[in-house]
């Protein structure tokens, strides 16, 4: 087996796919309107992990893309895009958040990391307001909603809240014991975590739970059942990872489950070669990666497949940057964000 070569990794094609998506999306993807910042994060993240951010982004693009991201800033966080706002830029009119245009916790996490890929200096960020937003999203039961009072809490937002606290190096804005109790209540008899308390074990929330705990420099009391469940997501036939027991493999779970194992220090228990073989088969011939072989590619599966490949140390010939599994960006990008988000704000440039 060991001398079998992996299929070719079309790095340039995946970068081209993401650059195309950054340039524009067809009307059929209108559902992405409420998560454009996440698309931006996956596309820029692909450039980051393939080591192309430096040479594929022109200085002009870099500046105008940063400006677009800051246009989505309302005091204390970011919106997914301009879809609820009219008039002029938020930056220039200093928009206050409103009920319909409240900062969105997931989009705020995505924006902060996208800005790090673009090597922004965060001089426009109001850190105290950001901390208030994170705290304001926490519900009495410890979970986090997408925006204060939205009532839609699940582990995705718990993770984003913890990631932002880690970037700020400030945990005083959240009730940590309550947040931990919420995470604990999402754990299931299978060993993984459900998206909400009582939910079925699922790869994404399992990653979110473990990453959140380790970002807070904590560990789960019991990890053996979690490792067991995670390694059993790998299909004997095909080598891909599934998100739930008895479901088919999907490229995105190649990341969620392998990164969860990496956090537990157990990623070497997967068959890395078989996983990379599956991910390589999910490559679309004209660039981009899809959830399963033969499907259409998108930035989400492209980025997460590449992140999975770097987590399991794919063939060095694939030329990928090492990834920080807790914050989900290259080490250089995470270092950039940590050094600058946490510092005291300087005088705004304007």
């Amino acid at each position: 087996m060991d001398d079998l070569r992996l299929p070719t990794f079309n790095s340039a094609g995946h970068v081209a796919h993401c650059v195309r998506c950054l340039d524009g999306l067809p009307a059929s993807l209108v559902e992405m309107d409420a998560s454009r910042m996440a698309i931006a994060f996956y596309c820029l993240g692909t450039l980051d992990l393939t080591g192309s951010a430096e040479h594929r982004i022109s200085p002009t693009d870099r500046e105008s893309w940063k400006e677009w991201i800051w246009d989505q800033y309302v005091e204390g966080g970011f919106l997914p895009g301009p879809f609820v706002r009219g008039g002029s830029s938020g930056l220039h009119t200093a928009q206050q958040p409103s009920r319909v245009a409240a900062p969105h916790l997931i989009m705020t996490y995505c924006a902060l990391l996208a800005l790090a890929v673009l090597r922004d200096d965060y001089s426009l960020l109001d850190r105290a307001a950001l901390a208030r937003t994170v705290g304001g999203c926490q519900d009495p039961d410890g979970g986090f909603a997408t925006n204060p009072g939205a009532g839609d809490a699940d582990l995705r937002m718990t993770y984003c809240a913890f990631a932002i606290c880690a970037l700020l190096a400030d945990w005083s804005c959240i009730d940590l014991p309550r947040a931990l109790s919420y995470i604990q209540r999402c754990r299931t008899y299978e060993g993984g975590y459900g998206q909400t308390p009582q939910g079925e074990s699922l790869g994404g929330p399992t990653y979110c739970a473990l990453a959140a705990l380790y970002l807070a420099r904590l560990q789960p009391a019991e990890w053996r059942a979690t490792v067991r469940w995670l390694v059993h997501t790998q299909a004997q036939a095909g080598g891909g990872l599934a998100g739930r027991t008895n479901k088919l493999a999907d490229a995105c779970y190649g990341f969620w489950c392998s990164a969860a194992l990496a956090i537990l220090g157990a990623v070497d228990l997967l068959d890395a070669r078989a996983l990379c073989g599956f991910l390589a088969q999910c490559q679309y011939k004209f660039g981009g990666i899809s959830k399963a072989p033969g499907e259409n590619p998108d930035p989400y599966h492209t980025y997460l497949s590449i992140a999975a490949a770097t987590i399991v140390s794919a063939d060095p010939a694939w030329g990928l940057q090492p990834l920080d599994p807790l914050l989900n960006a290259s080490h250089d990008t995470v270092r950039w964000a940590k050094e600058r988000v946490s510092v005291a704000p300087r005088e705004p440039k304007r």
Partner: protein
Amino acid sequence: MALKLPERPEWTDVVPVPQYENIQPLAPIFYSPEYKDATDYFRGIVKTGEKSPRVLELTETIIRLNPAHYSAWQYRYETLITISASLELELVLTNALTKASPKTYQVWHHRRLLQTALCDPVPELAFNEEVLKADAKNYHTWSHRQWLLVHFDQAELWAGELSFVERLLAEDVRNNSAWHHRFFISFETGNTTRTRDDADEAVRRELAFAKERIALAPNNASAWNYLRGAAFAELYVVDAVEVGTDDVLDLENPAPSEGAELPCAAAIEFMADVHEARGKEGLSEAVKYWRSLAHTHDTIRKSYWEFRIRDAVANAGAT
């Protein structure tokens, strides 16, 4: 809407607000004229803060074009409450929208808001089953069902759940969502109508149930995970129950169905765990089972089975 909004007399008083995109936006969407039109008017409405019946028409148009437009949902719900619109009628519409977009977070969140206000969970449970018929593993649908049960916590609601889940497992014994739900109704703490005796009884009943289903289809990870979960259910119920372990371990009873693919990796793993739990005396037996998994029966997890051997040897040495 048949006519474009600017051409309709009842909308002439609204000043549409175009979306501001900056010179070089990231991932701009080439909107359909219909969507652009509706969202321009939505931004106009939000600006003036209007809450009126026509806002319901407008937000419905947007939601039908983009069910993930959370602001349209949010503004719609506020409008419903402000103008005291019929939430029963809204539920009828939401039923159609749910069936059209069953994998959108927002449609389920809207249902939750409506149920919280309407407090009518029995028909909601029936509708939920209808949606599961189209996709028996839809995560949102199951989450909503579990929320309904815990939120209303009525004996009447819990009563039908075991037979409901039995029906789904009869259709597909590998439906892990149904197995998970069975665990939730049997052992989790959301049901306050259950007594201590019920909990004791549940462990015995569920172990037997899982073993019967394993005999039916041995290579079914869902049933094995369930058996493990039920065997260790003391983690979930308040007090431990004495479980006849011999009964659980007797994997020959009931016997596997004819035509089952044997040996079954999950059974070997289960036996290894049982021997590991015996401590030092069981270790060599457990190692034998793990080796057979690593080399023959479950080779993709070779590194994992080797880790289990190292881990067990280290633990045995430590005690």
